[in-house]
């Protein structure tokens, strides 16, 4: 299951050069599809099998074993990993398929698929690893793949810059994660999930402070991967990569690794409310901030990127509130519709021949109906149109937030509302109104081939019905809460539950439920009407970044965070580097060393002055010598 993609990577990487493009493309797809099928089968075995088994563990070999430090190269396939695996491979398959068409005219196609496969492989290692180190493997691996894929068009210097930014920011997170891992090992003496959680459960750690520290360090890692404040700026830049990459890595899968990590470490987070609060508030801040920025972006992919960040923020809110199911639920649905949206935008860009500015578009619905339709569904889903997948998952998050703290609920609701605004803004500006691109005639715009639209359709369907995996309980006990049951499986007697502390199903009075729903829906409606009025009826066009005013300017410049970082970190770093190079290393240390040598030569000059060639002096020196000798020894 895991090594199929790796195989794909190797084959594509080595032989790809001599393979026909389509072949390498299909090969890449096939491998992922294969692992998807395998995943499904395993999943069946897991839950359908009798008796139900908690997890399938397989140990390949001992990776490192030094003294008391022992790490296995082992995998664990339990329900949580299963869900993630299904998302990854499933959506991965679709996106692979999509890319075959999307990338067909790029001569680096085989490389592209090699990287994609490598990414899937690392992602699988991440979610299937049976210990934290395996997770770290995948963690870094996916970071690397995103580096490679963002910088895929290596001729472009800016893309390279974006790629390095992404990798470095991830690395910052990784450092935190690594420290967290060390702390875990010091405290609990193992990396194996089951062992660690058992220890946590019986309370090996003397104080909750340790757990808080671990939790926070892990969360730093999560920040890096899942693009939370302050490490989120790489994600929008990462849109430099090919669109399928954006869909796969930066929407559907990789960015959710942070969520996975937190859910996985639930046992630890459960013990430290403080850490959870932090998680929640950061999630909240990120969500709102990103949503605001999204309002003023004109690059279709940038908008989606910020919406991703904002959605991730929502998920972290859920985690912070301890609603792990809700978070995972939203991960799933978000994977569906965000992938859909990205691929849709990809299709648009494809149709527009790599034009990404929405102000250059408009009225595309006539030209590309399928894209239009699917995109609409995606938009509706993400904005929480009732009874689409997004509706349920987001609603659940809101509910959990509400039970946790009404204030949080309010803010979350706002950010959810803003989602509506920017999404519809983009949607209308792109597909309605009149075509505004001048140096690229309207006739040229064309619908994408079947190979691209097919995944769109599939994903559209999924984002419609995706809510089914965890229907809220008020729709009837029987069908509801599938995911919830899945996660709160107690491990069948053996000690391997996924959630150490099974979360209580949130029981609100129906009135409250309805109230919340009403609020959510009303927000959605307002957003819809406002934007429709502005961009369709009035046919307004968003301003270019240059002529933004006031708040808009700030927003379109992303709160100047990048600039701030440059001033705060990059510049000092380079300054330090230069200082060390020129002053410390050259001036201080080296000249100190050379000074010794120079001193030697100076003395030498002095001595040769004494040796002035005049015999009389020599005799005098000799006699002085003799005199001193006698003086010291006789008197």
């Amino acid at each position: 299951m895991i090594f199929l993609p790796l195989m794909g990577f190797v084959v594509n990487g080595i032989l790809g050069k001599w393979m026909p493009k389509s072949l390498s493309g299909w090969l890449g797809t096939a491998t992922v599809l294969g692992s998807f099928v395998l995943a499904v089968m395993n999943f069946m075995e897991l839950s359908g099998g009798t008796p139900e088994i908690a997890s399938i563990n397989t140990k390949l070999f001992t990776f490192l074993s030094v003294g008391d430090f022992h790490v296995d190269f082992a995998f664990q396939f339990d329900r949580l990993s299963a869900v993630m695996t299904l998302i990854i491979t499933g959506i991965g398959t679709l996106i692979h398929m999509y890319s075959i068409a999307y990338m067909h005219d790029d001569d680096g196609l085989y490389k592209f698929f090699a990287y994609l496969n490598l990414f899937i492989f690392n992602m699988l290692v991440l979610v299937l690893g049976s210990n934290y180190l395996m997770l770290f493997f995948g963690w870094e691996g996916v970071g690397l793949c995103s580096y490679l894929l963002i910088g895929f068009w290596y001729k472009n210097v800016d893309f390279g810059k974006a790629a390095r930014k992404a990798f470095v920011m991830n690395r910052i997170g990784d450092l935190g994660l690594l420290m967290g891992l060390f702390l875990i090992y010091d405290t609990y003496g193992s990396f194996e999930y089951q062992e660690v959680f058992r220890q946590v459960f019986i309370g090996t750690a003397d104080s909750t402070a340790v757990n808080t520290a671990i939790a926070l360090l892990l969360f730093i890692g999560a920040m890096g991967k899942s693009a939370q404040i302050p490490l989120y700026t790489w994600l929008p830049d990462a849109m430099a990569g090919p669109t399928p990459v954006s869909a796969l890595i930066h929407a559907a899968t990789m960015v959710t690794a942070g969520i996975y990590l937190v859910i996985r470490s639930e046992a630890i987070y459960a013990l430290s409310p403080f850490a959870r609060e932090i998680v929640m508030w950061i999630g909240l801040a990120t969500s709102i901030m990103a949503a605001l920025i999204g309002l003023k972006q004109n690059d279709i992919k940038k908008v989606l990127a910020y919406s991703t960040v904002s959605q991730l923020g929502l998920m972290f809110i859920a985690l912070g509130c301890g609603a792990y199911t809700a978070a995972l639920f939203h991960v799933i649905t978000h994977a569906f519709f965000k992938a859909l949206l990205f691929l849709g935008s990809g299709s648009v860009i494809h149709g527009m021949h790599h034009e990404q500015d929405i102000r250059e578009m408009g009225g595309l619905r006539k030209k590309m109906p399928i894209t239009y339709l699917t995109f609409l569904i995606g938009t509706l889903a993400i904005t929480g149109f009732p009874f689409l997948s997004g509706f349920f998952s987001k609603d659940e998050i809101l509910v959990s937030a509400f039970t946790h703290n009404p204030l949080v609920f309010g803010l979350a609701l706002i950010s959810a509302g803003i989602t509506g605004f920017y999404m519809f803004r983009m949607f209308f500006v792109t597909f309605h109104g009149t075509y505004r691109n001048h140096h690229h005639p309207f006739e040229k715009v064309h619908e994408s081939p079947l190979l691209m639209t097919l995944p769109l359709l599939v994903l559209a369907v999924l984002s419609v019905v995706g809510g089914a995996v965890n229907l809220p309980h008020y729709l009837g006990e029987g069908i509801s809460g599938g995911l919830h049951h899945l996660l709160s499986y107690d491990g069948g007697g053996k000690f391997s539950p996924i959630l150490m502390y099974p979360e209580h199903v949130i029981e609100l009075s129906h009135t409250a439920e309805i109230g919340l729903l009403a609020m959510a829906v009303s927000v959605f409606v307002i957003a819809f009407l406002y934007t429709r009025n502005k961009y369709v009826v009035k046919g307004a066009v968003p301003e270019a970044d240059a002529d933004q005013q006031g708040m808009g300017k700030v927003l379109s410049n992303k709160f100047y965070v990048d600039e701030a970082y440059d001033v705060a970190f990059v510049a000092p770093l380079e300054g330090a580097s230069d200082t060390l190079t020129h002053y410390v290393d050259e001036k201080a240390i080296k000249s100190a060393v050379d000074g010794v040598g120079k001193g030697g030569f100076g003395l030498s000059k002095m001595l040769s002055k004494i040796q002035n060639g005049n015999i009389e002096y020599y005799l005098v020196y000799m006699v002085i010598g003799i005199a001193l000798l006698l003086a010291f020894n006789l008197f």
Partner: protein
Amino acid sequence: MIALFVTFFSAVILLFAGLNKKESAFSLFAVVSLFVSAALSFACANQMVSFGMLESWVPANMMSFGKEQHLFAALLAFITGFVILMFRENENLGTDQLGLMMFSLCGAYMMVSYEHLVMLFLGIEVLSIPLFVLAGANKQNLASNEASLKYFLMGAFSTGIFLLGTAFIYGGTGSLELEMMGIKPSFMHAMKGMPIPVLINAGIILMSVGLLFKVAAAPFHFWAPDVYEGSPNRTTVFMATIVKVAAFVAFYRLLNTFGGIKDSWASWLTVLGGMTILWGNLAALGQKSVKRTLAFSSIAHAGYLVMFLLIADGTNTWILWFYGFSYAIASVLVFSIANQAYQQTGDFSFDAFNGIAKKCPIVAVVLVIGVLSMAGIPISAGFNAKFYLFSFAWQHTPWLVGIGLLGSAISVGYYFKFFKHAFLKESNNEMQFVDRGLLISLALIIVALGAMPWAILNLVF
């Protein structure tokens, strides 16, 4: 004794047979006779042959001919032979010079085997007086004259100092024979409270000054650089090797007799040793001329050997022998390369070496071996010599050993100038070296002494 005999008579023959004649034939004769005397005394040392009758001529309290003496005689003769061999093509001066050089070698023999201060005095003078002449052998060359005069004046002066010391010793101990001399002071030292008479102390100091002058140890080394620079190359090498070794043997024999009152002279000798090491190495750093550099390096080596004086107890003389041998071989090697380079380029700055590596790599490699040996870097005779010396001296004079290590670190600074010029610098003038075979064989000796010293030491000691 046999060495003295053979050398002396062949010297006489040379002196009269080849007066003012071209030397090529005679130099070969000299070399042969020297190697013969080396071989013979080596044979004597290992009781393969013996010339008891010959040696019985000399009263036993004047000179002694033990194994040690024979070995040193062999060493001196061997090195001198090489000196004459390597420099036979040199400035074409009359054969009488060969004679003089061999006469002064006779003086060296006497210095290594004296039992009586008269013999030591005679040895020193027989060694020195011909050298005064040899130093000035380039009659027209002003530098040579100056060297000769300086050497003469200062040498005579130091002889005076030495003699005063001898007189004091004579007065203080009542004897001029080595084994007699030592008794009284050590006896006095043995019973506490009885101070060593001023005469003896002063005598030791003054005699030591005389010898320190000969070995060119600071602060009595001032003559060395100037005289080395001014003298003809052959004489310089002779002075740098033979004189030093002989003087050190004499010195250690003298101090050894006063071993009973070691603490009265060890302290200041240590100070002088350290001073010499630092002075020699530091002064060498800034030199432009190869000859002066080597002169100062020889001063530094004198400083290292002072360590030996401090640890000499009559049983570990082989260290001195080994050190002297490796040092002498290396200096002859480097000097003869420098000499040939000088013959062809005409200047004695390091630039003479420019681009040797390109023109004749073999010579460059040989040069590397020689210089590394002088710097004391393994695998070479020089390293082993230093290693023996330092490791033996460690317990007695750790600080001096420390200075020695520091000194050999400094020495790299000037020894590697050779490499700079030989490997980095370019030069367009033609160069070819004669006697490559000899050079290579010397280098091989050095490496052999470095790789398997114990085999060779077993052979001799």
